[in-house]
């Protein structure tokens, strides 16, 4: 599903260079649920941004679903992002002026689907997260957990092959966090590949595989004990 080979990302601020990722290589198979952990500044967010085509790598190759996306231009990257990737953010990132229905509609608008098809997909996605009854509500009228479920519905509406989640439960209390995690597990069980960045060892433990980043590289050190069943399948490589 995702293959990164010798990816580097260097940020330049004047004469100062910051190496966020250093020759990172990673393979993720279709249908995997990968948790990416690491201390602050280890490159987790940069990795997620490159994986989500929000940033281009400074060097290296990135193959997504069989296509080399590392050198794509903006329109092609946007189209690929829209069709193949779904995002879930820590802060939900719903658009406050739009009601729930219209929030879920945003990625479908950019896909250019006709209205009827969009409406059906939105209804399905909201059904999946149990918020069909709230589609005319504004985000401010929902709880944090409900907002995150809307964000998940929005991410799923376009049937992406890869779901990228950045601390999806970071702003939620433990009950809501558990509900969201269960939802992600259901989605993964249905076949969607999930890569989740998290600080929470408990959540990381529930993922199929853990990838630990340290100083912009995949580290051999595994602070979180991997789940016994999937531990042999881990394919993280140190470049």
């Amino acid at each position, binding site marked *: 599903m995702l293959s990164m080979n010798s990816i580097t990302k260097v940020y330049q601020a004047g004469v100062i260079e910051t190496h966020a990722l250093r020759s990172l290589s990673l393979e993720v198979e279709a249908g995997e649920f990968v948790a990416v952990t690491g201390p602050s500044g280890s490159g987790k967010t940069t990795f997620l*941004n490159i994986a989500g085509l929000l940033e281009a790598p400074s060097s290296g190759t990135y193959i997504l679903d069989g296509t080399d996306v590392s050198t794509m231009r903006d329109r092609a990257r*946007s189209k690929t992002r*829209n069709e193949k990737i779904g995002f879930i953010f820590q802060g939900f990132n719903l658009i406050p002026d739009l009601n729930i229905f219209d929030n879920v509609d945003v*990625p479908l608008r950019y896909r250019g689907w006709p209205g009827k098809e969009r409406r059906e997909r939105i209804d399905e996605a909201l059904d999946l997260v149990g918020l069909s009854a709230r589609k005319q509500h504004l985000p401010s009228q929902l709880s944090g957990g409900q907002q995150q479920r809307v964000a998940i519905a929005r991410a799923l509406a376009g049937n992406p092959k890869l779901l990228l989640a950045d601390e999806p439960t970071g702003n939620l209390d433990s009950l809501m966090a558990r509900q969201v995690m269960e939802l992600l597990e259901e989605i993964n069980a249905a076949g969607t590949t999930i890569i989740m960045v998290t600080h929470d060892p408990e959540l990381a433990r529930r993922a199929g595989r853990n990838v630990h980043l340290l100083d912009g590289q995949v580290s051999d050190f595994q602070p979180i004990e991997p789940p016994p069943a999937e531990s042999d399948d881990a394919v993280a490589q140190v470049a």
Partner: protein
Amino acid sequence: MFSYYLRLSWLSLKRNPLLSSLMVGAIALGIGVSMTTLTLFYVMSSDPLPFKSDRVFAVQMDTWGPDEPANRKGGGSPPIQMTYRDAMALMESDIPTHQATMLHRGFAVRTEDEDVRLQRLSARATYNGFFPMFDVPFLYGGPWDDRADENADQVVILSRESNEKFFGGQNSVGNTIFLDSVPFRVVGVINSWQPTPVFYDLNNGAWSSTEDMFIPFQIPITWEYGAHGSTNCWKPEKLENYQDSLQSECVWVQHWVQLDSAEQREAFHAFMDGYANAQKEFGRFQRPLDNRTTNVMDWLEYMEVVGDDNRLLVVLSLMFLLICLLNTVGLMLAKFLNRAPLVGVRRALGASKRDVALQHGVEVMFIGLLGGLGGLVLSYLGLLAVRNWYTGYEYLARLNPEMIATAVALALGAAVIAGLYPTWHITRIQPAVHLKTQ
């Protein structure tokens, strides 16, 4: 997607009504001020005789004294009016397609209906060539005939407004009105006719209304009336009676001709020069030969109907629009950057830079349209104020369809210019930077 972007624009305006109002207000103010001055300038500069203004000419003959020119313009030029006797000499020519000597004065007017009170109305005394030469439209009847010109027949043509006033708008041809108690037969009623400026007689105000009625030129001459307007003389003359003033060197009548071809114009100039040379033998026309025919638009330019101060005012108002636009750029930049996190979300969800540019471009146009409509209202109020504060601007300070279209186009153009940089800037944001901060 256009309707979607339009809806997003509306939501965006509602989200921050103060900032939105400031942007729309800045554009509206700039458009309002510039359109007020542009409308005045446009009407002042427009062709009052479309389709034939290049074939209709004001006539000047240099009858002035030898010591100095009548006008210092262009190193010396002939007087802008003519003496009575020279104008009458030109009327003898059959070269022009149409021609007319004319003067302006007032009369006390009443009808046979004693309930209609006596009124002081303006009149133009002229020849029947005036009407076809200036494309004057008739509602009823038509111009008087040549015999009426020759015999100073007591016939009158009313303006539409005068006809409304005296006859309730009915066909009054054949009816009688009294000018200074003398009966005149109505032979025609003019439809609405307001050339702007009133080019044929700039002595009585370029922006005034056309006359209330028209009578044969020889009527005031027969009655020994003078003209209302300016009379200029280059030498002191002892005028014992009215006949003396008709033969004097004073200029006080206007003369216009229609010359449809270059040959006709050449022939008319030859006629004028021949006449002037013949007059030189009688001691007149002491200056070098300088007889001129000037077409309508050149005449307005020569008479400086649109002064440099008007042009300066237009430039200043456009500079004011520029200042308003610069303010709008700042406001728009603040508004767009404020929503950078939302743009980041949209980018993450699949919007390309082009999509972001289109969304914000539509919003910019929407703001421009609202600003344009606000500007039109302000222009209307501005022109209303001009009409109320300054006399003679009644027919000038009015918004016409062309200017309304110009205002909307100017507002949209201004908004696009103001929105270019903020829109470009918002497409350049790195979505990843803002996703964490939303």
